[in-house]
Structures are given as structure tokens and as C-alpha cells.
């Protein structure tokens, strides 16, 4: 590591007697200075090269996104027409048809998942924020991170074993619960974080005015943190909206209209999957169109979440 040259130069023992003779450096010092001069050029080059390398890494990392979005728009846009949003899939080999039932199915699944996941996630987040440092809170926080890393396919086989097998049939409800369970850890952690940044003075003011603790928490603290919690909920929804693996063995998919929670239901990601691996070109182009719509939904939700956070933090100076 000649790059450490200057550090070596610095560690030379500065003799007290050197102080008076600064104008005439010793031979050792001259050699060190010479070495510094020869290495400094190289060190500068290394510096510039490495800045360039990280810049290239940044470009390379954004390329896949551009390629994927670009190809999605190119391949999907041509199949997007009114029929795509209003019709159900045609039998294999026939042209036309749409994914209307799948889009509605995804909406139903999101609603079911939110109905299950949001209350638990927000409640757990409240508990974690208000009981920080306790054994239960630390344990729950850790386990929620573990749950967050659970492969979605494991959630899928769990929901099958726990709900589909006992009920004897595939239902939208089982899929909704599997997706809802995946939302819980995300919602819990964002809720906790958002509640933690609510100023303590606000809580104290409410308590000082005679509010009970539960009213303080729900009416003052939760309401102040609400925009952030909504953001967390949106992020969670955008994550589960495209999940496929937990749906394979729970909602199964459906070629027809269904919005019932007690029946198998179609879902956009499932429909994309089955069309993508089918041998028919018509279905491939429908899969691209479906992917474009799905990614549009996901991006709009995540953008909404991002801007909600930004405007909130923009005001956050007060």
C-alpha cells in the first residue's frame, strides 16, 4: 500500500531540535518528502479512478430498471385497449380478451389483506412505540423483522395448510390472509417509527390537559402520525400487490368473474404468471400488458407514498 505513504511520512519522529532548523530538512525528511511527491500523483489517480468506478456502478445499477420499464412499455402498450380493462381472458389461442377480472381480484385481495394486516400492524406499532426497551417490545420488534424476511412461498404453503386444507377448497380469503400477514411486519415498523417522531411535548400537553393515556395515544399521537402511517400502509400495499407465490396455493386463480371471498379468485400477478409460461403468443402479449398495468399500479402507489412522506418532512421543520 504505497497509498499510505503520507501517513508513513507523518509518523516520522519529529525531533525537538528540528524546530529551529525547519528551513533545512534532514536527509530522512527530504527522502520522505520525495516519496510523498512521487506517490501523491498515483494516489490522486487512484482517487479519480475509484470515483469513476462507483459512478459506473451507479449507472449499471439503474440500467436494469430502465431496460425493464422500457421493454414493458414497448411490449405491453400495444395490447392495452379498452377490452383489456373490461373483458375476461379468452380461451387459449384466441385473440383479444382482457384481465378485468384479475384486476378486480387483485383489488379484492388488497382490501382483504389490508383489513387483516393494517389493524394488527398499526396496533403492534403503537405498542412497540409506547413500550420501548421492554423485553416484549424488543422481542416483538426482532420477530417482526424475522417475519419480514420470511419467503413469501413459505407464507403460501402455511396458508394452504392452515386455511385451504381444512376448508377443503381454494378461497380468496386464504390469499387475503396470507398477504395480510406479509403486510404486518412492514406496517408495524413504519407505524412505530412514525409515532416515535411525534414530539413528546405534544403527548405531555394532552396529558396535562387531563386526557387519559389511551385518548392521548389515539386522538393526539396517532392522528399526528397518521400521514406517516398511511405512507407505511401504502408501501406495504405496493409490496403485496405484486406478490404471486403466496397466491399460487391459496386463491388458485380464476378464468371468470368472481369477487367472493369464499371462492377462488383471479389476481393480476397470477394471471401474468400463467400467461407468461403458456405457449401462445397472444397470451404472452397479454402478460406484458398485465405486467405494465401491475407495475403502473405498484409505481403509482409507491410514488404516492414517497410524496406523502416528502411533503410531511418538508413541513417537518416546525
Amino acid at each position, binding site marked *: 500500500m504505497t497509498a499510505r505513504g503520507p501517513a508513513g511520512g507523518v509518523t516520522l519522529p519529529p525531533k525537538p531540535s528540528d524546530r529551529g532548523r525547519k528551513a533545512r530538512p534532514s536527509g530522512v525528511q527530504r527522502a520522505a518528502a520525495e516519496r510523498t511527491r512521487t506517490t501523491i500523483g498515483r494516489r490522486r489517480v487512484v482517487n479519480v479512478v475509484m470515483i469513476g468506478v462507483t459512478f459506473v456502478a*451507479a449507472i449499471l445499477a439503474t440500467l436494469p*430498471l430502465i431496460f425493464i420499464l422500457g421493454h414493458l412499455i414497448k411490449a405491453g402498450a400495444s395490447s392495452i385497449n379498452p377490452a383489456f380493462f373490461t373483458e375476461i381472458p379468452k380461451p387459449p389461442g384466441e385473440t383479444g380478451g382482457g384481465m378485468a377480472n384479475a384486476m378486480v381480484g387483485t383489488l379484492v385481495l388488497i382490501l382483504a389483506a389490508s383489513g387483516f394486516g393494517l389493524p394488527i400492524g398499526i396496533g403492534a406499532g*403503537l405498542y412497540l412505540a409506547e413500550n420501548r426497551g421492554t423485553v416484549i417490545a424488543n422481542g416483538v420488534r426482532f420477530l417482526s*423483522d424475522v417475519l419480514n424476511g420470511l419467503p413469501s*412461498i413459505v407464507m403460501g404453503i402455511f396458508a394452504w395448510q392452515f386455511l385451504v386444507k381444512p376448508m377443503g377448497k381454494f378461497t380468496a380469503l386464504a390469499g387475503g390472509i396470507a398477504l395480510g400477514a406479509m403486510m404486518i*411486519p412492514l406496517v408495524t415498523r413504519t407505524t412505530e417509527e412514525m409515532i416515535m417522531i411525534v414530539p413528546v411535548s405534544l403527548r405531555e400537553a394532552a396529558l396535562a390537559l387531563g386526557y387519559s393515556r389511551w385518548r392521548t395515544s389515539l386522538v393526539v399521537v396517532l392522528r399526528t402520525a397518521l400521514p406517516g402511517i398511511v405512507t407505511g400502509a401504502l408501501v406495504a400495499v405496493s409490496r403485496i400487490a405484486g406478490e*404471486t407465490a403466496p397466491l399460487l396455493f391459496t386463491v388458485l386463480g380464476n378464468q371468470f368473474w368472481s369477487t367472493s371471498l369464499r371462492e377462488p379468485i383471479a389476481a393480476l400477478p397470477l394471471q401474468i404468471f400463467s400467461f407468461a409460461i403458456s405457449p401462445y403468443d397472444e397470451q*404472452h402479449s397479454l402478460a406484458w400488458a398485465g*405486467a405494465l398495468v401491475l407495475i403502473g399500479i405498484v409505481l403509482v402507489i409507491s410514488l404516492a407514498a414517497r410524496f406523502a412522506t416528502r411533503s410531511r418532512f418538508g413541513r417537518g421543520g416546525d
Partner: protein
Amino acid sequence: MSEAARPLVTARQDDSGIAAAIEGSAIGDSVYRWLTMAFALCIPVLLLFIAIEVGVAAWPALKTFGFGFLFSSDWDPPHNVFGAAPAIYGTIISSIIALVIATPLALGVAIFLSEFAPSWLRQPVAFFVDLLAAIPSVVYGLWGIFVLQPILREHVMPFLSGLPVIGQSGLFEGPAYGPSMLGAGLILAIMVLPFISAVSREVLMAVPRSQREAALALGATKWEMIADAVVPYARSGIIGGVILGLGRALGETMAVTMLIGNVHKISASLFAPGYTMASLIANEFAEATGDLHISALMAVGAVLFLVTLVVNALARWLVWRVSREARS
């Protein structure tokens, strides 16, 4: 359980005179606390439920095959013989490919964003990389089948097998079909990159200013500051981020199922198709016939569950250690 809520209870004790006067609020408070605690406890209960349900379902297969289940390569549903070795092998190899490609890139991005990028560039690039994490797995799979796979087959694979030394190493042998371990590893690399770079960026930004200033004051160039002072300080957090990415790669299902070829075989060549634990479950569960077949798939799921549990716990612990150091 009142011990558990000690910090807030003390706040109440201060104004206990008033609180006692308002009788209903005391009841309301304890109802509220028990209710939120019940919600919080849903998380451990859910995890326990998952462990029990999957474990119970996996038991028949584990009992029948014992530890051999992990090391046997026979997967023969009609004869009720099951061994998960190819799937476990494929999971490990595809994840290694993903990490080998994604880690340097993600670290480069993280360093660029936390140290070099001008502020007007920081937000958009970070946003673009984060968006990669928002793309659904099935869309990656679709893109992989119709775009990445043909490119691999026609350009990348012939190029790799034509390389002087590496091409003869056995890693890049055999016909280039398309569905392959290499394709699965590549798509996984793209998918885990945002996770690794996000965590790395966070821990790099958590490195104290004094650390950087000290290095610069000693005459280090900006790069030397990063390589000798910043990255070593954030090392365990970065490793945590990589392991977090590993956790994602191990359990990733749809994109891998669509690209890996789904074949029960251990091949040294990365051009050959294979299986991962997740893709095995996704691919065969719906068509599983016998009870033992389902149980074997559940056992694969249980192994996957255990492995990701350990990996994630390790990653969280490493990241947590860095953020604790940065705070103190």
C-alpha cells in the same frame, strides 16, 4: 405485566391524583394497553403458527427420510422417494451467483451515493435503485424469459464458454438452452441489489463525521478516507446488508421458477437447468399427488424457513450492532 410498561407508568404516577379522579380513564388505559399488546403479540404467535403448521405437515417426510432427505438427489413422486439435495444445491449456487454480482455493484452505488454524488443526483439515483425493489417478482420473471434469456443464450453464454481459461473450468460447459442456473442467478442479482445498496447506504451515512475528518486531516484522499476509515467502520453493517440480500435471494420464488428450468439434477455447469427450494415448491405443489409428496414439499419449505430465519436473524443482529455503535 405492569413492569413491562414501566417508563409510561411513571408518567401516570405523577398525576395519579387526577387519574384516580377520572375513574373511567384508568379502565380505558388498561384496556388500551392490553389491546395493543394483543396486537403486538400477534406477530410471535403468527411466526409460531407458521413454524408449527409447516413443521407438522413436513413431519411425515422428515420421519420417513431422516437426514438423508437433505443429501439425497432422488426425487421420484410415483415411487414416493424424495431427496432435496438438488434443490438445496441450486438455492445455494443461485444465491452465490446473485451475491457475487450484486455485492460489488451495490457497494459501489452506496459509496457513490453517500460520498461522491452531488446532491441533485443523489435523490434520483437512490430513487431509481430503490424502485428495483418495487418491481414484482413475476415481472422480473416475465422480463427474464423474453429478454434476458435470449440474450444469455445468444451472446453471453457463447462468450463465456469461449473465454480462454474460465471457459474450460467446467462452469460454463454444455449447450446453451436458456433456462439455467446462470439466468436465475443474474435475475436474483438484480433483485437483491436494491436491498444491499439501501442497507449499505444507511450504515455508510451513519459513520460519524469525525471518522471522515480525521482521515482527511491526515492527508488521505477522498478514496483513501472511504477505503481506510469509512468502510471498515461500517463493515459489519455492510455484511449485514449482504446477508439480508442473501435472505431475499434464498427465498425468491417466481422469477427463479420462471428462469431456472426446474430440473432435479445437480450440475457443475452454470449453463445447466436446476431447481431451488422455493421454485420446487412453487412448481410441484399444485400437482402434488400423494400425501408424502406434499409432505416432502412441506419439508423443503420447513428447511427454507429455518435457513432464512437464521440468515435474517444474523443480518439484523449485524446491522443493529452498527446502528447501536453509531448512537453511542
